[in-house]
């Protein structure tokens, strides 16, 4: 991988920096976002179940 970077000159290092940044930002944002979504879905499903139970 390092040989690939060195073969592509300055822009190789720039693209590698951008790629690493994108990966790290996604790794930072995705877990809390997915946790929040899961929790929201769980709470909504529970609310629907309770509503269904009270209607029947």
């Amino acid at each position, binding site marked *: 991988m*390092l040989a690939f*970077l*060195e073969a592509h*000159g*300055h*822009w190789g*290092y*720039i693209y*590698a*920096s*951008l790629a*690493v*940044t994108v990966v*790290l*930002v996604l*790794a*930072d*944002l995705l877990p*809390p*976002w997915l*946790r*929040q979504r899961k*929790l*929201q879905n769980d*709470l*909504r499903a529970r*609310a629907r179940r309770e509503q269904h139970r009270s209607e029947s």
Partner: protein
Amino acid sequence: MNPVWRWFHQLGSPPYFYRFATRWMPWFGISALLLTVIGMYLGFVEAPADYLQGDSFRIMYIHVPAAWMSMFIYGVMALNGAIALIWRIKLSELLFLSCAPIGAMFTAITLITGMFWGKPTWGAYWVWDARLTSELVLLFLYFGVIGLASAYDDLRQGARAAAVLALVGVVNVPIIHFSVKWWNTLHQGETVRIMGKSSIDSSMLWPLLIMALATKLYFVFALLLRTRSALAEQERGKQWLREAMVEAA
């Protein structure tokens, strides 16, 4: 009571914070994204190549704002840690815990992009220079805070133990900042100054300042996202949370 103080007091209330985060998060996220696009266009397309370093200097538009954020977030984290230790405010504990992974992410970006910039400039990916070594210590401090906090079963107890470590580690922040002055380092000295003239041309400076603002906004966005998610998990059985989630839907 002063309205600003009243707002700060209200922000300490979990329901108020949850609603505040839900309302403001998209604005911070969208502004961060827009400024990143503008900053990157100006920095990677419009700014001229450096007369000494060529195009490799453009890595600065990621590396420098990330380095500034790595230290700034540590300060915010330590401040929240101190508040959590002294006043035992639940929300400060969550803000403290949420700062650590974001700060670690910015520190990792700083170190990795620094390596990619170091190779074409110095001829080496890594040197045990004072600036690089103290920044690596900062990454270990972030890892230490994350690890120590998660070693406890009780989240609040873990946050307070990790807050002590974070406060001890504050000493490293001025070391990072002044390392280029205190020691003879390979890392370049200060080029952007708040007081006095910066030794960088304005065509290169403006994109950097825009990127710096974008990373600040990103930090607020990520902090609100993480803290809101942690708060929702902690308060999951509460009626106010259900109401807030229904409101947001």
